[in-house]
């Protein structure tokens, strides 16, 4: 009303009034936005300070728990642990965010420790019922929280949550699928049994992570990977062959040779490479037979030739490998030259003869092979 009277006293046109009202509104909105930004900054910095304070408090208590409760200090009374739990309960209270900071801090400390030091932190997680918080997050609407929960439950070996985690294997979210896959690898008493019914892709990243985990567990606890060589899911077959190779499961060789007759070229290629890596001399003839048929397929030819370099016979395979020296693909010619050199003196002679008879067209490859820095 007051503004109306002022504007009337200046006899402004309708357009001028609109501009003045618009500017006023804009000014108020800008002021509001600045105020909101200012308040949100205050809230954020207070939140960060609270997080930092809680982390420091938790860290101090966790240090005491790890150092006092491990077997190196057996004289510590059991009641000391209960006292520390009471301290943590008091600080975390019933605040979900404080309890989350505590879980994160326990994980931060636990990742660097092993043995009794790590076990006491797992006991702390359960003594404070933090598994309930993690399980609650599994029902969150946010995928990030679900993924975080899956990770926590796996880290603290919460086997009762396996049925809930299995459901995420078919989630539409790729990260949740990967997290649940990794969690199951860690949680199942027999690692990887869930692969029996797994029908999705195992990405290279998942493969690397699983290998990283499996390489830390006892060899006798590893599954026999050949049980998945005939799995209907090609991705599982490829994964299990590569794991059999990494863990040098020579008992899987008979089942592996059958894979040479697969109709999937990726499986055949990986099976060939694996036979070479595992030095399966007894299956040399199968590779020779394959090599005579794979000329048109560059990748397979390359792998078969490389495999023969590892398990071939100096007297019998030089002729076959020499043929590959005139293959149209450079990579195959290169592997054939490497393989002949691996077969010893006779292979070396065959290489030199071929080079002389073919106007030195292998010179580049031979120079490459002779370069010590490239070996």
């Amino acid at each position, binding site marked *: 009303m007051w503004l109306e009277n002022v504007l009337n006293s200046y006899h402004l046109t309708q357009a001028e009034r609109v501009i003045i009202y618009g500017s006023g509104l804009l000014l108020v909105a800008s002021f509001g936005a600045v105020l909101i930004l200012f308040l949100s900054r205050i809230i954020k910095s207070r939140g960060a300070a609270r997080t930092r304070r809680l982390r420091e408090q938790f*860290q*101090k208590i*966790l*240090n*005491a728990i*790890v*150092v006092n409760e*491990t*077997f*190196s200090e057996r004289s510590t009374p059991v009641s000391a642990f209960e006292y520390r739990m009471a301290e943590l309960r008091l600080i975390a209270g019933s605040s979900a965010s404080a309890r989350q900071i505590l879980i994160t*801090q326990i994980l*931060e*400390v636990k*990742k*660097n*420790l*092993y*043995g*009794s*030091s*790590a076990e006491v932190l797992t006991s702390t997680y359960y003594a404070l019922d933090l598994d309930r918080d993690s399980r609650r997050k599994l029902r969150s609407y946010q995928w990030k929280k679900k993924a975080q929960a899956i990770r926590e439950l796996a880290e603290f070996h919460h086997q009762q949550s396996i049925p809930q985690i299995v459901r995420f294997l078919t989630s539409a979210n790729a990260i949740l699928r990967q997290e649940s896959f990794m969690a199951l690898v860690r949680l199942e008493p027999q690692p990887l049994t869930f692969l029996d019914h797994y029908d999705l892709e195992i990405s290279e990243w998942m493969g690397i992570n699983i290998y990283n985990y499996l390489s830390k567990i006892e060899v006798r606890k590893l599954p026999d990977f050949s049980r998945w060589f005939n799995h209907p899911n090609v991705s599982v077959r490829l994964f299990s062959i590569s794991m059999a190779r990494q863990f040098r499961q020579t008992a899987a060789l008979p089942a592996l040779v059958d894979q040479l007759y697969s109709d999937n070229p990726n499986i055949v290629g990986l099976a060939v490479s694996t036979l070479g890596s595992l030095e399966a001399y007894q299956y040399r003839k199968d590779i020779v037979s394959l090599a005579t048929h794979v000329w048109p397929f560059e990748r397979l030819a390359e792998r078969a030739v490389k495999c023969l370099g590892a398990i071939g016979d100096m007297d019998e395979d030089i002729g076959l490998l020499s043929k590959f020296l005139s293959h149209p693909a450079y990579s195959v010619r290169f592997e054939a030259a490497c393989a002949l050199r691996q077969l010893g003196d006779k292979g070396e002679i065959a290489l030199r003869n071929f080079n002389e008879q073919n106007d030195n067209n292998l010179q580049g490859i031979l120079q490459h092979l002779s370069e010590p820095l490239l070996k």
Partner: protein
Amino acid sequence: MAKILVCDDDEALVSMVRFKLSRENLGEVIKAADGREAKALLQESDFDLVITDIHMPFHSGLEITTFIRNDLGKNTPIIVLSAEGLENTVLQAFEIGANDFITKPFSPAELAVRVKRILKK
């Protein structure tokens, strides 16, 4: 009292190591959160022991080891602490002058025993 420099960007780990070593009365622990800070501290004062992680911002633990041995020309005992327990890395650490190598995850009790042994020498 021994002066021990712990170089690691992992706050939780440094806090744990500091707590354990102080509790065992092994010395005063000084922290460096990255390679640059570690170098500055090493230039400023002498330490009785350096515990360093390999992967740190600015300079790696191996660079710190080389710096102590070659640039400063000191024989300060060095324990390299790393999540990377590859044979090559371990060998490289010993070749450039590390006195001990501990792979993460580790046991604080084991670390304390090793520190005690090194400081006694």
